[in-house]
């Protein structure tokens, strides 16, 4: 019917809503394939005796959770935040600092990680969300940097150098995370859970207001919605999700450092979301995988791989109509069409 027009629409998420059934089906099939692939990957890794693949994809899935949370903000609420890595770091530091005090069970460290990242999101969100556009980008950037420097100044917890964990967390006393395979599936379960939660969220009443405010905040206000409150709640939810990713990251690497919170890391998360196609959720997972695998592959050739990747980013922003969003949508469409 109106397929060509839909391409120009800068709101793929919303277009989905009124879209014909096949399109909706694709939004189910692709994630299902993605998760099935991830579930079967350990078997392949085992068959090829490529143990490193398990670690690599554990990492991919952890960053997918963080990228998902960011897609919730950028893709569904038009909140371009440049400080998402701070929450990743907070989650990881919760694990690290608790471990330094002898508390190594996930039943404690996970709730703490979520609470700390949620609280930080609430406090900074109260200030950030009062501003718009350029101010919002810069303020989230600044708060992220605040977390970074604060972590770096924590001399008792390793300061700049970070903090090494003696071991991964236990779960109710059981060393569940110690087996790479078991940990892989724990992370996969977290990713699937986070994905389903986000999916539900954007389709809910709450998500509808968020998406509406992305399209036209003034209209939503005159309809009677206090947009600020909705955005604040979304910001806290996204912060906690990234905190979860941080909790997993700290356990995966058994190491925590301020570098997790650097603003470059926040930038990379944005790139992941855009690479996969924003406002699709599963795009965030594809984007995280693309970015991390590309990094792995390029850096095997040269340590100066960013000299290639940087101009690549510039090229797609400059020459693809509608910037990365355009290429994301174009790539996404190609994938969907099969």
């Amino acid at each position: 019917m109106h397929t060509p027009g839909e391409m120009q629409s800068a709101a793929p998420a919303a277009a989905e809503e009124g879209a014909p059934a096949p399109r909706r089906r694709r939004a189910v099939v692709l994630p299902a394939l993605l998760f099935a692939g991830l579930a079967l990957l350990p078997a392949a890794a085992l068959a090829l005796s490529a143990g490193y693949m398990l670690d690599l994809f554990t990492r991919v899935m952890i960053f997918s959770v963080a990228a998902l949370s960011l897609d919730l903000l950028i893709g569904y609420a038009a909140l371009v935040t440049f400080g998402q890595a701070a929450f990743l770091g907070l989650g990881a530091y919760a694990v690290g600092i608790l471990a330094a005090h002898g508390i190594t069970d996930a039943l404690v460290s996970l709730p703490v990680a979520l609470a700390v990242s949620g609280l930080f999101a609430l406090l900074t969100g109260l200030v950030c969300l009062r501003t718009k556009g350029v101010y919002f980008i810069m303020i989230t950037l600044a708060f992220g940097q605040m977390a970074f420097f604060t972590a770096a100044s924590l001399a008792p917890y390793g300061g700049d150098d970070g903090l090494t964990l003696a071991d991964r967390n236990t779960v109710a006393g059981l060393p569940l995370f110690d087996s790479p395979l078991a940990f892989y599936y724990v992370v996969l379960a977290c990713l699937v859970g986070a994905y389903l939660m986000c999916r539900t969220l954007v389709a809910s009443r709450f998500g509808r207001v968020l998406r509406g405010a992305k399209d036209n905040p003034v209209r939503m206000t005159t309809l009677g919605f206090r947009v600020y409150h909705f955005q604040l709640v979304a910001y806290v939810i996204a912060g906690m999700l990234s905190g979860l990713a941080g909790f997993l990251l700290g356990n995966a690497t058994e190491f925590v450092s301020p570098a997790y919170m650097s603003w470059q890391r926040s930038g990379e998360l944005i790139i992941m979301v855009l690479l996969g196609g924003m406002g699709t959720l599963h795009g965030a997972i594809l984007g995280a995988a693309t970015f991390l695998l590309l990094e792995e592959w390029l850096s095997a050739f040269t340590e100066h791989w960013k000299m290639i990747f940087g101009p690549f980013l510039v090229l797609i922003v400059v020459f693809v109509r509608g910037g990365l969003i355009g290429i994301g949508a174009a790539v996404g469409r190609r994938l969907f069409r099969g």
Partner: protein
Amino acid sequence: MSTTLLVVQILNGLQLGVLLFLIAAGLTLVFGVMDFINLAHGVQYMLGAYFAVAFYGLTGSFVAALLLALAAALVFGLLIEAVVVRRLYGRDHLDHVIATFGIILFLNSGVKYVWGAAPLSLPVPEALTGSVALAPGLLYPVWRLVIIGSGLAVALLLYVLVSHTRIGMLVRAGASNAEMVSALGVDIRRLFTIVFGFGAMLAGFAGIMIAPILSVEPGMGDTILILAFVVIVIGGIGSIRGAFVAALLIGLVDTLGRSFAVDVLRLVMSPSAARTVGPALASMLIYLLMAVVLWVRPSGLFPAKGR
């Protein structure tokens, strides 16, 4: 805390403030006039320092290195504007962010490729080495005074340029209403190019001046960039005056906070607790300041009219 130490730290704070102003001035104009977010402004500061080191190596003269590096920074800024930035005016802020992030990745890595990852240094010019006694028992490095002086001179120059020249008038008008300026029949693109190049040169100048007292290394522009963001957000985007006030404020608060936080906290808590909390608090101080300013005035201290 002795008076001498306090004076020294105030001077250090001023020096940081002046440096921040040099970087923030270009940034705030580029934001204000073109509505363009330039994350790559920090690498222009880094390039200034690298250019200075390189030209000093070639000529052996600081003055020659300064002039050549300034010219190179200007040319490089114009190049970036022509090749990348010009194509992105009027686009989504997200596009600005990603493209200039790409430039950062490229240049940070490129600098490493050309000059290596090890920190380089630039000697202080012969005549300006050593310290001067500002008061009995109060020695202060001459070069740092030179930085403060030259920064204030640039601020004055900018003030005159912006408030008393035609191009300054256009820049001010552009910051509050770009459409009006183009409606006046001014070639807004050329104005953009000039402002961008000039901003890049100012950032380069900051990098050159700081090179003798900091190590010149890849990524040195990244941290200072965020501080410059804090400055222009507090000062109000598009306002040179705001950038100046906020830069000095941030420079002083950050420097004094780092020097005295532990001492101050000792008054209210145990020394060991103060040693732990102090540095953390000190590094949060300017961001808390920013939060407070924005809570009270969401568009900064001196918002440019019309936005």
